[in-house]
């Protein structure tokens, strides 16, 4: 426990009173935690590089040498800009050979309602991350929301659809799993038994209707939504006959799909 209080203590000490101020005055701020290996000179260079690239932003830098963690606090920045700022940091550190792991990006109050607690959680999350990946990840604080841990399985052979939809839904706090054909979809379904399946009808290995049938036969309380390229009324009719709850065609609106999903999941609660 004593050790746990020590983790990232330099970053916590430096930022604590600022975060307290943001929390009290309800002002926005962005936080980036990076695993990096820096000396004083390199840290100064990074600071001046960022001042040159993004001069309008008020940024505080704090480096905890014992943990190899760099903390950056951005004044009055939302999650969108903080993420954009982290792209510069990643590029620079990579070029200098100082980047030793991933970057975690969060913001108050978008990522968490408690600024100080958010910083603690971000540092802890960074400690658990493998050091061989140089990726930028968004911090997801476990807010007690309805979406948290609601599992969704996306089945579509179109990688772009899987990419856009899973990124959007993960951002909303859903637990998203993906599969590219009916067979893989069925395997995933049996493993996770999700609350909602969003599937295309045109699937390889195991056809869409067969996949839907098998999900239905499992007698799990899973809702099924079809997201398809098929625009004909006949397809829609046939799909509903298979026990599907929602039918949407591509191209699709992310807002519409989320609204329909929420409605379905509310009914399944």
């Amino acid at each position, binding site marked *: 426990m004593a050790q746990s209080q020590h983790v990232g203590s330099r970053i916590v000490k430096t930022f604590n009173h600022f975060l307290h101020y943001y929390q009290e005055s309800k002002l926005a701020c962005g936080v980036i935690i990076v695993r990096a290996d820096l000396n004083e000179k390199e840290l100064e260079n990074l600071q001046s590089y960022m001042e040159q690239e993004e001069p309008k932003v008020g940024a505080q830098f704090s480096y905890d040498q014992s943990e190899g963690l760099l903390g950056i606090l951005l004044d009055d920045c939302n999650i969108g800009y903080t993420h954009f700022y982290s*792209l*510069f940091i990643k*590029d620079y550190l990579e070029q200098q050979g100082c980047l030793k792991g991933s970057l975690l990006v969060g913001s108050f109050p978008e990522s968490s309602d408690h600024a100080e607690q958010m910083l603690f959680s971000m540092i802890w999350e960074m400690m658990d991350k493998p050091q061989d990946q140089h990726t930028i990840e968004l911090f997801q604080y476990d807010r007690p929301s309805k979406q948290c841990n609601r599992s969704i399985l996306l089945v579509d052979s*179109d990688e*772009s*659809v899987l990419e856009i939809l899973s*990124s959007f839904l993960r951002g909303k706090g859903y637990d998203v799993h993906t599969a590219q054909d009916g067979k893989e979809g069925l395997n995933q379904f049996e493993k996770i038994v999700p609350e909602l399946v969003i599937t295309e009808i045109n699937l390889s290995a195991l056809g869409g209707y067969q996949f839907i049938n098998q999900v239905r036969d499992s007698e799990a309380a899973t809702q099924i939504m079809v997201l398809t390229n098929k625009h004909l009324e006949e397809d829609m009719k046939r799909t509903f006959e298979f026990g599907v709850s929602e039918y949407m065609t591509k*191209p*699709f*609106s992310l807002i519409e799909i989320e609204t329909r999903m929420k409605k379905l999941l509310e009914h399944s609660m």
Partner: protein
Amino acid sequence: MFFNLQMAYWVVYGLLAIMGILTIVIMGIKFRNARNQKKTEESLQNFQSYLDYVQSQLDEEDRLRTPNQKVGDFDKKVLQKVLIDWIQRLSGVHRDKLITLCHDLGLIDFNLKRIKSFSEFKRLDAAYYLGSMRSSKAIPHLFKMLKKNKEGSEAFIIGRSIAQAADEPKDVKEMLTYLAKEERNNYHLLADIAGESTLDLRVQYKQLLTSENKELVKLALLGLSNQTDSGMDSNVRNYVYAKDKEIRMNAVQLLITSGAWTSNDIKKMLHFNDSDVRAFVAQWIGDSGVVQFADQLREGVKDSDKIVARTCAKSLLKLGETGFIKLCDVTVQNEGQPVADLALECIQEDLKESSVQTGNIEHVTSYNQKLYLYQKYFGKDEGLTQAI
């Protein structure tokens, strides 16, 4: 003999030379493709974090920012492919946000330069991207290209780009009129192309209804059926009686699906000379469950055309208990005639199909009701019961 051998050597040398050249060309193409593939992968890797940023911030209010690193021409090609893949799959505000990003990345100007290239492939590729990015700036260039590509599928690619990029409905109408000029019966494809436009094309379609070009009339009838609140034009009613079968069928479909029909229209159409019209209307009555036309369907079972008669019987069965009783009446009242056989066959088929659908309580009660009525009319049929 010596002369012929010499000739044979020359032919062999010639063939070897051609094979050599072809091998070099193929190797060159392979090498170029491999190099492009490698460059694409490198570029994607370079911009991966940026693309992750775009995805994760797509739902935020702020405008998406452009990358901090330099974006060269090759990178632009790679980025635009990824962004257009996403744009094509989305609609609404998120798609608009990505389109704005394409503008901010300078992809419009990049493609406006490419559309003037000497290479036809580059010009077509640029036209495709400019359409996908909804760039109205590209419209004059696209029309110029369209009029150069008088024939072939390229004209349809350019037409689609015009439909996507146009911010004036008159431009879409001009493109459609141009592509339909040859009357090659492509109106389904043209309606699909026009469907890419987000503009309200009702006025333009209504103008096209009066065109002398039959292709445009068919296109207008099809296009109006995809528009909400099409506001029935008197021309559409006139086309229900058109000599051209496709115009007639499209007008009937539009009149019915738009909901602008009167009871009189339906009754008249069930007596049209064209059996396809009669079958279409009978099918629609069943699918839509419009019970008020059950008596017309009962009469339709006696139609001289077997397809129409069968469609009427099947549609009656879709009207629930009322339809089922009417079909049983037909069977009983026409005993010994072919129409009674047809009606009974349809009833028995329906009972067999219903017996399989016992998944939910509604199906079970509906099936029981039908079986009860069947036995009331025809008594217990052991053969049928066994088959069920």
